[in-house]
Each structure stands twice: as structure tokens, then as C-alpha cells.
């Protein structure tokens, strides 16, 4: 809109420093190449501005909180990942190897609960998002820095509670805590559900913070249509976090009440309705899978456009489709209840509503591919991950349409097909995007470059390992292998073994990621302020950024994807 209201040329006195691009009137130009001029303005970075453990524990700096979240979520990714390896190894043969049926139930429950509540949900929004959101908006911090820190500690409490379930007899309900079993099982359901309940508060706090920050803290000139797509995705995610999480909170609260006071709301013996729990649970948890995937979409939008040096195709379509997915996600929960006794009519309606989600999702995928078309693609590690994402996520998304189809679902319900679909979307989608985002923003976070070759090998290993693990499971599921079984018939053995070997390869790839990233911090080359020659605001400050992000409030005069080399005479 009226972006040229601010005349900024007069403010040029600070132009020697690297991170002020407040002086451009035409369109933003990158600070490529002068990143080494940091010595001129030796302001300490956020990493070194204050020292000592306490300076981290009580920090209200969104960048430090983001890093703490990253460390915590990656730790739980490791824990839950090791559990997954244990599960896959047990499944290498059809008989019991080293886990009893009861242990297997507990391990897959813990794997799911930790992955969902402690890794995937907070990883991208609260980890990477916390770091980049204010930087991308040109703000000094999020709107409520103290709440941001509080959300981290609330998350830590939730983590401790979920870990405590191990001591209290563990949990064997699966991460969905379905009634009536969750009411009668002797395991630590109360502690686990309270942990998930508390984790929800942390998620709400992050969501409120992000929505308010996006509304109120944008730099001058940054209209909604000039926001990076990562912001749009985080914004849509935050809306779901705010609107869906309270319903999960009350559901888990009712479950706890049910177990402690035997209220009877979910108990058929007392006149309650167990399917009501499933409705409540999925009213949150279906939108929640979009809490998990939408930020991944945001990352991919950034990676694809920056590393193919081409303005994103269909900016508004991608931006609005994020919000559209957020809205539609609230009307599809019934597709989890196709075989739970809901009416046929409801099943048909939910089936069609589920197909509707495919539309905005496909708009995104087509726009990303169209962005690549004709772009000057640089095969950097983040780009490799973005391409891996396009493959795996598309498979995950399309198999979701199979499962949303009422008749097909009845056949595939509760089989490995569902497991494979879910992992294609969550691992092949969110985790791959998360890793790509880590490689993309790692130079900004720590001011160090990583080893490109090692990064690419990791992407390749993840791609091969992931597909070997989960593509097989589509066939397993189609042939009738039910999920959550620790032993199986001999005819499934070959495919289970292929899947297990794939999981080991995937684990190698992920360990290589960990190694390259840590190696980069220790002995990577120094990164310039803008190693990718990107245009969005986070690249206009030093790497790593100074404590208050920018020396002067940046002024925004154009799209975050107008790369300097783009020929503006044509359509784009």
C-alpha cells in the first residue's frame, strides 16, 4: 500500500554498518559481500552479549529462547527416535525378540507421545519460528517476551511429566489415549495426559505471542502482502494453536476427571459415550497435525524461492492457502471415526470435507514446483531437503486422500497404511522441512557455515532411509498388516525386514545431520550476514544477529522475494 510514506534517505548516517538497509527507496538490495564489515560496528551478538548459564535461563530474548527450544526438541527427537529404532528392530522378525507385548505397547506409546507433544508440535514454531519470526518481521522481539520464556518452562514441566510416566508404570494406550481403555488400564494415564495438557499451555502461549507479534510488530512498510511466507505459515499455525488446543485441554481434563472421579461422561457402563472422547480428541488433534505440517510448508516456501533465485510463484495463493488449511482443518475430524459408529451420512460429509483439504495443499505443491521451473536452482543442502520434501510430502498427501475416502478407509483402517501415511506427512514432510530449515538458518543462528558435502549426503541418506522404511509399509498395510502389533505372520517378514533396514539408514542420516550441525558451530567457516543472498529481513542483520536484532528499524519497500538479479521487465 502506501509504503513510500516514510522518507528514509535522510537516515543514511549509519550506512557503514552491515545491517541497515533502511536507505533504499526502490527495492531492497541485499548486503551480500559486506558481511565481513562487522568489525566496523563491533556490537556483540546475542550469543555473546551476556555470559553464564543464568543469562540463558532467565533470558527474554526470542533468539535464545528459540535455541533453548531447539536443543530441547532435538533432544526429545533423539529419545523418541531411539525408541523407534528399538521398535523397528523388534519387528525384524515375526516372533518376540527382546520386547514383550506389553513392553512393545509402552514403547510405541512413548514414541508417539514424545514425538508429537515434545518434538513435532514445538520444533518448528517454537524452535525455528521463535528465532526467525521477529527477525523476519523486523521487530526487536516477540510481543510478550516474558510469556515466551514462560512457555519454554511450561514445556519443560510437560516434558518432565511425560518422562515421569516411565517411573510410574509407563503408558500403553497409544498417544491418542482412547477411552474406554485409557480409563481401565493400570498404566500412568493421568500423569501422561496431564503432561500433554501442560504442553498444550506452552503451545497456546507461543500461538498468542505469534499472532499478536504478527499483527502489531511488523516493520514500517511491511504490509500483509509483503510478509515472508514463513510468517504466513506460522501465523496460520498460531491460529490453530489458539483455537484447537483449549479443546484438547478440556478433553484431557475430562479424561483425568473420568479416571479419578469416575464421572461417567466417556464410560458406557455409567451412561456415557466413549465415541464422544474420540470426537473431542480429534477436534483438537486433527487441526494439530496441521500445527505440525503448516510451519514446514512455510520453511519450504522460503527454501525453494531463495535457493532457486526466483520470485515465489503464486505468493498470495500460498499465503491464503495456509489460512484456508487452518480453517478447513476444523471440519474434518470425523474422518478418524469412520469405523467408530458415527452415522453413515456424517461419514460421507466428513469424507468430502477431507478432500477439500487437498485443494489448498495441492495449490502449495504446484506453486513450489512452478517456482522451481525456470529458476536458477542452486543445489545447496537446504535445496536438497526441499526437493526431498516435494517427493515425500506429495506421496504422504496423496495417500491421505486414499484414507479420506470412506470405502477405502474401511479396508485400510488401523493398518500399516495409516502408519506409513502419517510418517510420510510428519517425517517426510515436517521433519525434512525442519532439517532443511535448520541448514538454511544455521548460518544466521550461529554465524557458521556447515560442510555442504556432508549436508547433501545426510539429505540423501534421509531420503533413501525414509522411503525404504515407509514405502514398504504402504504395501504391508494394504496386505492387511495391522498396526501396533509386536509380532506378525511369516508372510510379512521380508517387508518388515526391508523397513527395519531402512530405519537404520534413516538413523544414520539423522546422526550425520547432528554431526554436521555441531561440527559447523565448532569449526565451520564464518558465515557472512547473508550467505544465500536472500532478501527477507532476517538476512539484513549480522550473523549471528545482535541482541536487539537491528541497529535501526528496517524499512520494507517490496516483496521479500524480489531477488536483485531478477529481471523485472518481464512478468516476474
Amino acid at each position, binding site marked *: 500500500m502506501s509504503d513510500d510514506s516514510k522518507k528514509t534517505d535522510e537516515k543514511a548516517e549509519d550506512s557503514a554498518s552491515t545491517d541497515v538497509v533502511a536507505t533504499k527507496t526502490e527495492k531492497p538490495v541485499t548486503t551480500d559481500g559486506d558481511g565481513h564489515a562487522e568489525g566496523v560496528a563491533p556490537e556483540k551478538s546475542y550469543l555473546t552479549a551476556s555470559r553464564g548459564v543464568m543469562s540463558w535461563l532467565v533470558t527474554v530474548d526470542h533468539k535464545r529462547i528459540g535455541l533453548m527450544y531447539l536443543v530441547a526438541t532435538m533432544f526429545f527427537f533423539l529419545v523418541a527416535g531411539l525408541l523407534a529404532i528399538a521398535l523397528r528392530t523388534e519387528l525384524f522378525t515375526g516372533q518376540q525378540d527382546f520386547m514383550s507385548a506389553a513392553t512393545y505397547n509402552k514403547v510405541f506409546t512413548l514414541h508417539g507421545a514424545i514425538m508429537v507433544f515434545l518434538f513435532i508440535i514445538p520444533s518448528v514454531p517454537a524452535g525455528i519460528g521463535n528465532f526467525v519470526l521477529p527477525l523476519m518481521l523486523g521487530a526487536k522481539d516477540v510481543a510478550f517476551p516474558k510469556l515466551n520464556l514462560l512457555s519454554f518452562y511450561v514445556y519443560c514441566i510437560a516434558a518432565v511429566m511425560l518422562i515421569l510416566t516411565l517411573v510410574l508404570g509407563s503408558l500403553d494406550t497409544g498417544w491418542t489415549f482412547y477411552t474406554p481403555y485409557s480409563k481401565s488400564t493400570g498404566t500412568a494415564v493421568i500423569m501422561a495426559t496431564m503432561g500433554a495438557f501442560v504442553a498444550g499451555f506452552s503451545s497456546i502461549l507461543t500461538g498468542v*505471542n505469534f499472532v499478536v507479534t504478527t499483527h502489531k510488530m511488523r516493520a514500517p512498510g511491511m504490509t500483509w502482502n509483503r510478509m515472508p511466507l514463513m510468517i504466513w505459515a506460522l501465523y496460520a499455525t498460531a491460529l490453530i494453536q489458539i483455537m484447537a488446543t483449549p479443546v484438547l485441554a478440556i478433553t484431557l481434563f475430562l479424561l483425568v*476427571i473420568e479416571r479419578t472421579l469416575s464421572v461417567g461422561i466417556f464410560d458406557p457402563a455409567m451412561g456415557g459415550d466413549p465415541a464422544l472422547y474420540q470426537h473431542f480428541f480429534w477436534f483438537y488433534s486433527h487441526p494439530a497435525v496441521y500445527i505440525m505440517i503448516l510451519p514446514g510448508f512455510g520453511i519450504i516456501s522460503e527454501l525453494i524461492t531463495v535457493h532457486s533465485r526466483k520470485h515465489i510463484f503464486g505468493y498470495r495463493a500460498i499465503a491464503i492457502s495456509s489460512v484456508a488449511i487452518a480453517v478447513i482443518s476444523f471440519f474434518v475430524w470425523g474422518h478418524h471415526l469412520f469405523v467408530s459408529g458415527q452415522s453413515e451420512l456424517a461419514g460421507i460429509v466428513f469424507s468430502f470435507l477431507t478432500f477439500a483439504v487437498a485443494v489448498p495443499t495441492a495449490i502449495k505443491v504446484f506453486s513450489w514446483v512452478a517456482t522451481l521451473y525456470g529458476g536458477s536452482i542452486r543445489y545447496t543442502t537446504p535445496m536438497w531437503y526441499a526437493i526431498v520434501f516435494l517427493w515425500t510430502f506429495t506421496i504422504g498427501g496423496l495417500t491421505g486422500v486414499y484414507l479420506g475416502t470412506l470405502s477405502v478407509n474401511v479396508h485400510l483402517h488401523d493398518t500399516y497404511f495409516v502408519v506409513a501415511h502419517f510418517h510420510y506427512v510428519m517425517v517426510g514432510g515436517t521433519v525434512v522441512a525442519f532439517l532443511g530449515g535448520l541448514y538454511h538458518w544455521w548460518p544466521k543462528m550461529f554465524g557458521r557455515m556447515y560442510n555442504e558435502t556432508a549436508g547433501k549426503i545426510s539429505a540423501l541418506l534421509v531420503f533413501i532411509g525414509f522411503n525404504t522404511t515407509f514405502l514398504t509399509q504402504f504395501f504391508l498395510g494394504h496386505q492387511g498388516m495391522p498396526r501396533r502389533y509386536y509380532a506378525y505372520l511369516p508372510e510379512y517378514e521380508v517387508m518388515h525386514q526391508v523397513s527395519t533396514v531402512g530405519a537404520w539408514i534413516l538413523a544414520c542420516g539423522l546422526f550425520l545431520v547432528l554431526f554436521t550441525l555441531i561440527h559447523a558451530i565448532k569449526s565451520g567457516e564464518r558465515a557472512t550476514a547473508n550467505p544465500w543472498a536472500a532478501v527477507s529481513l532476517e538476512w539484513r542483520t549480522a550473523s549471528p544477529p545482535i541482541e536487539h536484532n537491528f541497529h535501526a528499524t528496517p524499512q520494507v519497500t517490496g516483496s521479500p522475494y524480489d531477488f536483485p538479479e531478477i529481471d523485472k521487465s518481464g512478468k516476474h
Partner: protein
Amino acid sequence: MSSNAQEHEDRPWFLAHHFDTVGQQMSSAKLGMWLFACTEVLMFSGLFLAYFILRDLYPEMVLVASEELNKTAGGVNTVVLLTSSFTMALGVRAAQTNNNKALKRNLLVTIACAFIFMIVKYFEYTTKIEHGLLPGAWFSALEHGYMLPKYSRVFYGIYFTMTGLHGVHVIVGIGVLSWIYIRARRHEFNSENYVAVENAGIYWHIVDLVWIFLFPLLYLVK
């Protein structure tokens, strides 16, 4: 907050370092509070849904079981909460008009109303407990001579869950309002800086609003 305020004397002390203007800070705080209010309403809406499903399943039971609730106590509490909402609104107005004395007075009345509400609630709960009108497993009203239909225990489950969660919110409200009162005594609020009072007010109105729905649905079923 402090270091930047020293650098720029024109920045008021209450303006946090990451905001540019007081207006930005105020509107952010207010938007944040409204979003939080949304989460509260959504959380209670889950309970209301459970209530309506129960009522749909066993309409006769809900009708008979609800007769045992004390309409007078519920009515008194409704009046008390509405009064407290009114004094809260007066308090916010007092903060906006720099009338610190009226702010403190109205906050005290609001807090007092909250206490009255909880006291009435206490007597209501003790009567229910004595007569065995309790949720689920503890339901023993039939031994106390009540003629209640099957599944009445689920109604009392819902009753205690809903009013209990609401009561927790009232207690939290007492804490929040007391904190605002302490800050008012320190003369922290004025016509420029009153958003904390206003936000506490929004919270209190939400608590009130939930009760406005709880009262007829639980006590006045027809």
C-alpha cells in the same frame, strides 16, 4: 526495560524495550488478552458440549436431577457476579480517568464479591457432599433417601466439573485482581498506562459470562 529508558528520556518507564510506542504496547496487550479470552471460551465450550450431549441422551434425568440444585444460592451468586462485573468496569473507567482512589475502591468491592461467590459456593458444595449428590463413583444420594433417575450421577459429574472449573477461575481472578490492587496502591496506573487493569477486567468479565450460561443451564432446566 530500564536500560533503554535511560537512553531515551522520552520513553515512559512502563514502555518495554521492544515496543516503539505506548499505543503499540497497549494494543498488543489487548489483542493478546482477547486471544486468551478466546481460548477460555473454547475450553468451556467443550464442557458445554458435553452437557448438551448428556441432556440430549437423558433429558428426563437432567430435569429431575437438576431440581436438587439450590436455585436461591445460584441466583444470589449470579447477582453477586454481575455486581462485581459492574464494579470492575467502573474500576477500569477510574484508571482511565486517573482516579486512583476510585480504582482501588472498585477493585476491593470486586474482590469482595468474588469472595462472597466462593463462600456461597462452599455452602452449596458442602450440602451436596453431605447428601451424597456427588459425581460418578461417589454418588450415594439414593442411600440418603433421594428418588433420582438412573444416570443422575453423570449429571452431578458434569455439575461439579463445570462449576468446579469455573470456581478455579474465580480463585485465579481473586489473585489477579489482588495483584492489580497492589499495583494500584503503588500508583502504577494512569490514563496512559491502564491496560493491565483493562485486561484483568476482560478476564473477570469472561468468568462472569461463563457463569451467566452455567446458571440457567444447570439450575433452571425446564
